[in-house]
């Protein structure tokens, strides 16, 4: 009888020993940051102010008061479709939106694709009309996603309410291009969001 008890004790020791090897004891602690809540507005309205891939005829109908820009329509590079708008050593100056109504906006979203080729500092600027003059938003060479020789994506929000006017204008201003310098622009989207 005693041998049976002894064998049982030995088996129990072996089993619990292996189990403890599988779960090495370790001091631990847990902290929680609870109840982080996020709620969206109960309604909002998105309005497209401009959506232009420069495929229309005339191609710049949405710009510079219905055309007559100093940029050119280009087909040697496009992000979508066949055409883009381009600025070169010869074709430069302002490419300005017509006056979409951005009044009462909560924000304005501006996005477009651009292809800079040998573009230098201060050669292409994106500017916003403040009612009397144009404020430079970005020197495109300094935009975080800028890379010469590649299609780059611009997507930013305008938060400053001074620009939320009935005659909102966005302007691409170019100058000082060298002979082989190019700037292509495609798929320009301007949206406004209005909350109740």
């Amino acid at each position, binding site marked *: 009888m005693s041998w049976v008890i002894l064998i049982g004790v030995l088996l129990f020791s072996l089993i619990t020993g292996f189990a403890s090897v599988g779960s*090495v004891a370790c001091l631990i602690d847990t902290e929680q940051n609870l109840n982080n809540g*996020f709620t969206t507005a109960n309604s909002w309205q998105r309005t497209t102010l401009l959506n232009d891939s420069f495929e229309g005829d005339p191609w710049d109908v949405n710009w510079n008061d219905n055309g007559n820009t100093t940029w050119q329509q280009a087909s040697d590079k496009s992000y979508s479709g066949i055409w883009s708008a381009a600025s070169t050593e010869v074709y430069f100056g302002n490419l300005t939106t017509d006056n979409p109504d951005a009044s009462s906006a909560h924000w304005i979203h501006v996005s477009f694709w651009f292809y800079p080729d040998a573009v230098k500092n201060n050669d292409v600027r994106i500017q916003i009309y403040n009612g009397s003059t144009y404020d430079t938003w970005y020197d495109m060479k300094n935009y975080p996603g800028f890379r010469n020789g590649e299609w780059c994506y611009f997507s930013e929000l305008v938060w400053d309410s001074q620009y939320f006017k009935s005659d909102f204008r966005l302007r691409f201003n170019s100058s000082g291009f060298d002979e082989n310098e190019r700037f292509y622009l495609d798929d320009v989207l301007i949206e406004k969001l209005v909350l109740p």
Partner: protein
Amino acid sequence: MKKVVVSMLILGVVLAVALIGAIALFTDQATNPGNTFSTGTVDLTIDPTIAMFTVSNMAPGDVQYDGIQLTNSGTLDLRYAMTTTADGNSTLDGQLTLTIDVVDDDGVDNTWYTSDDVVHEANIYDGVLSSAAIGDAAQGNQTGDRILVATTGSERFRFTVELPIDTGNSFQNTTCTVAFVFDAEQTIHNP
């Protein structure tokens, strides 16, 4: 005669016992007292302990900043990981994005967890809110786990939550609630 012999034997035994009891010896004893053993502590503290975010009326494009400081208040070096638990009441937590940066200065505005904080380590997490994680909470050292030295180790995380600008109307008037859970463990003897 027999009695005499027995008496002599008894007397001899008595004398022997008496002599043994009277032998003198020099002795000494030294004691090493007060040997104590104390365990260390793994104690991760967070600030704030209340919710970082209570955001209402969000619209696409909205960006919210806040942050949290983690400090090793224990006596052992620790490593920790973060996981996120969601209430599952909506899919908003899968639409919101979260970026976590390690920041080490509050920037020009002298306010922590704003856009101008000086980033020491960018994007230790960059993805949807619902699956936000840093490292792995499983025991042992895993990729992304972070280490804080005992007593003084501390770091600050800036949380940037954004409702993407392409968020559709189906997300209007929705709510989600999440918890960020930080699990710490000892590093010593715990490779």
